[in-house]
């Protein structure tokens, strides 16, 4: 036992790797939140009038809302007046290609392990990088442009494709959907926009990298993905933040629309700063992600690996409106030290013969709390809906907690819904088995955890899967209960 404890100690005491800051010259809004700040953000972004009105409407709706308290997380309240809602790396001039981007920024991304230039040449992943909520570089734009794919920053899309933005923005997650979505709608500073035209199969993975750099800022980005009939896209998202003592807020919104026969795959590797070992600092990650399968035979698949953030509050959902549409949710959520995660999904079956699948793997270590909260709702007209959910929890150490709150609401007799959940720890016999074969305990645990999470990890695109495996090992390595 004592040896196990030692290993546990060793692993769980690993520091956050991405906790450095870079001093960009930043353009910041004054602290606080009011109509003027929103006008300021909108003016900074040179937005049209309708956009400003939309923001203000969302802001006024937000002012009337109450902060939700139902989630199984506890944290000191956020003082929304003490935040900076806009912080942009100062741009001297407009950049057209990667070569013109601030070299320091490129170096930043290289430290993050996503070298834009490298990626451009080698991996064929188009990257849109967002620092402190402003998009700084988008690679591969021209290649994509030839296929009619639009992949650009949100503010660029507002300027250049206002008709698309007007049509789709807020149609999946309305501006007044919930507290944090409304806040995001009011103050969002940038994000990514992706449009795949009819019948186009996006030839490469699209990727966004988010990073919070400046102190006292909140990051509010918005992602909108529209997949027209018969199209396909795989989208990746990654995030990191520097180590700071105070908590930072990240309230993003992701909207996905899939038309008939379209397929969207959205993968996230979330590695925001989780706070130090005493639970000080870290990111509050309050995210609204929702996709709608509008057309028949469409498919939306969410895959997430959640390792960071002090508090996570995130429920990527699918509205299965089209007949024969499919929703999937694969998740690995790892919490350590004082992290708290309340995450899961909602599958709303509206169309006939709709299918959904939920695989959620929670791993808690240290003094963390890990909750799965999900809903499967089969509406009256969703004949022959099918769902399978599996929520497993792995506990490491006797001071952490694992919780499951699945809601299953069935209004149609032909529905077939199954849910199962288990909670266990890594068996001593499993460790022993590995040790017998010359694998030391820490490697054995990494091996077992990776095996446990494999079902989800294999859903990730190659490059991400490798990163995710490393992250898993990093966050937990070797916790033997």
């Amino acid at each position, binding site marked *: 036992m004592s040896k196990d404890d030692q290993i546990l100690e060793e692993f769980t005491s690993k520091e956050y790797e991405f906790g450095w800051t870079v001093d960009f010259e930043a353009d910041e809004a004054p602290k606080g939140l009011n109509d003027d700040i929103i006008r300021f953000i909108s003016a900074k972004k040179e937005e049209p009038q309708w956009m400003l009105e939309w923001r203000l409407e969302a802001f006024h709706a937000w002012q009337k809302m109450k902060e939700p308290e*139902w989630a199984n997380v506890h944290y000191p309240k956020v003082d929304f007046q003490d935040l900076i809602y806009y912080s942009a790396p100062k741009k001297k001039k407009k950049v057209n290609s990667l070569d013109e981007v601030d070299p320091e920024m490129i170096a930043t991304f290289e430290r993050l392990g996503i070298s834009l230039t490298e990626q451009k040449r080698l991996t064929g992943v188009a990257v849109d990088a967002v620092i402190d909520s402003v998009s700084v570089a988008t690679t591969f734009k021209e290649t994509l442009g030839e296929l009619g794919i639009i992949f650009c920053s949100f503010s660029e899309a507002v300027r250049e494709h206002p008709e698309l933005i007007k049509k789709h923005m807020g149609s999946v997650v309305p501006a007044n959907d919930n507290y944090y979505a409304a806040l995001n709608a009011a103050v969002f500073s940038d994000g990514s926009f992706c449009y795949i035209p009819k019948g186009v199969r996006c030839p490469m993975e699209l990727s966004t990298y988010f990073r919070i750099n400046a102190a006292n800022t909140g990051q509010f980005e918005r992602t909108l993905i529209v997949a027209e009939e018969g199209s396909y896209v795989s989208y990746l998202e990654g995030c990191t933040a520097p180590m700071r003592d105070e908590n930072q807020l990240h309230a993003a919104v992701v909207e996905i629309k899939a038309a008939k026969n379209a397929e969207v795959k959205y993968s996230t590797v979330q590695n925001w700063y989780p706070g130090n070992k005493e639970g000080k600092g870290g990111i509050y990650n309050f995210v609204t992600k929702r996709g709608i399968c509008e057309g028949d035979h469409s498919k939306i698949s969410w895959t997430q690996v959640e390792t960071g953030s002090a508090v996570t509050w995130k429920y990527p959902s699918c509205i299965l409106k089209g007949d024969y549409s499919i929703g999937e949710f694969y998740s690995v959520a790892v919490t350590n030290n004082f992290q708290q995660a309340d995450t899961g999904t909602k599958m709303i079956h509206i169309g006939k013969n709709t299918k959904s699948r939920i695989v959620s793997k929670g791993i808690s270590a240290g003094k963390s709390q890990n909750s799965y909260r999900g809903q499967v709702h089969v509406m*009256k007209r969703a004949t022959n809906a099918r769902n399978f959910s599996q929520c497993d*929890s792995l*506990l*490491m*150490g*006797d*001071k*952490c*907690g*694992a*919780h*499951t*709150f*699945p*809601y*299953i*609401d*069935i*209004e*149609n*007799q*032909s*529905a*077939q*819904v*199954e*849910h*199962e*959940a*288990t*909670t*266990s*720890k890594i068996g001593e016999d499993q460790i022993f088995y590995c040790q017998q074969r010359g694998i030391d305990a820490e490697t054995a645990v990494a091996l077992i955890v990776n095996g446990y999470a494999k079902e989800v990890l294999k859903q990730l695109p190659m490059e991400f899967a490798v990163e995710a495996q490393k992250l898993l090992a990093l966050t937990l390595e070797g916790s033997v*209960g």
Partner: protein
Amino acid sequence: MEKIAGQSILNSLETQFEAFEKSLNGQSKSAAHAVRKEAFSSLKNSGFPGPKNEEYKFTNFTRAVEKNFELNGTNADFGLTEAQISATQIEGLDAHKIVFLNGIYSSELSDNIQVEGLKVESLAEGFKANSALAQANFGKKASFAEDAFVALNTAFSQHGVTIEIADKAVIEKPIVLYFIGDSSTAELSYHIRNIVVAGKFSQATIIEKFDTVGEHKSFTTSVNEISVSDSAHLRFFKIENDTEQAYHISNIHASQGANSNFKAFTFSLNGAMIRNNLNIKLQAEGIETYMNGLYLLDGKTHVDNHTVADHMMPNCYSNELYKGIMDGSSKGVFNGKIFVRPDAQKTNAFQSNKNILISDKATVNTKPQLEIWADDVSCSHGCTTGQLDMDALFYLQARGIQKDKARAILLKAFANDVLETVENEAIKEYLAAIIEKRLEK
């Protein structure tokens, strides 16, 4: 100030509570009455659960009571015939029988129990005589602060029984509590409180059954506070097969001592709206707990089962099996909570909830919930909802069994998983007959 839900109910209750206090005479200074007063003021402050209350999310009992009942505090006289009364009772059951008419203990119809180690007394008598058992246990297990309907029951319940089973006493015959109501002339409402203390190494079976005869609506609540001492074995049956006008809220709050074994059975077969709260605290080591339930619903019946298995100590085992068949436009709600507290290592906790919908209008809302703070545990829950297996149906039809009959066979087999866990033959046969009749209609 925020508007609280169920204000109109509270208004009519307020005067009743004052009248009730006046009628108490000498008892108003008792410990039990202090609890009642506290419960009522807590109810006044927090109100009844509104539509946003998580625990009552799918069962808006507050609205049902507001809409359907005047709650004027008095019931019409009991006027049922002997035949009507005996029709509500379990045929062929050899038991110690206790009967309540319109919520009031009937010494004429109840058996005069003379069994060594068993003491069954009317709670109202116990309060009058200032019985230590009644005073010490009233309101101790069922927390009125946590549930408004427990608070309602705590404030108004005067009747019920205290059952005391001596250490090492083995009570062969089950103790059956019949609560029979007459709603033929007016709406009916009463609140029952039972206190059960099972001594060390004792064994007993208790059955609680509520029935109403008449066309008018009835609203009844019952709270059972049960102590299962070390190494005791206790079975508790809740049989709900009331009229379509019957609104009932049942609370069973039990705590278990070391190496004890408690089995709770809940059969919900008919009623307008039924809410069952079953809370079991596993307070020592080596405990076994079983919670078995079957809900067989039709028409507009709405049944909500909320169960809690709270593992507080190591080396305990709990197993829960709830099954439901929903027909007509009925609604089934299930919420099973398993808590495993930080100290409760080596816990084994299992839960299974299975539902079959056999009508387009029936719905089911289920929420199996695991909350675990200990690492060396083995816990699982499973939950399925679906319709009858078409292949199985076809298999039977291919062998010349008519579709209706085949369907009934499959549903009966589904329900049998729960029925088979009943050890008492008379109870099992009684339930099987009701289920069979219902499924073959």
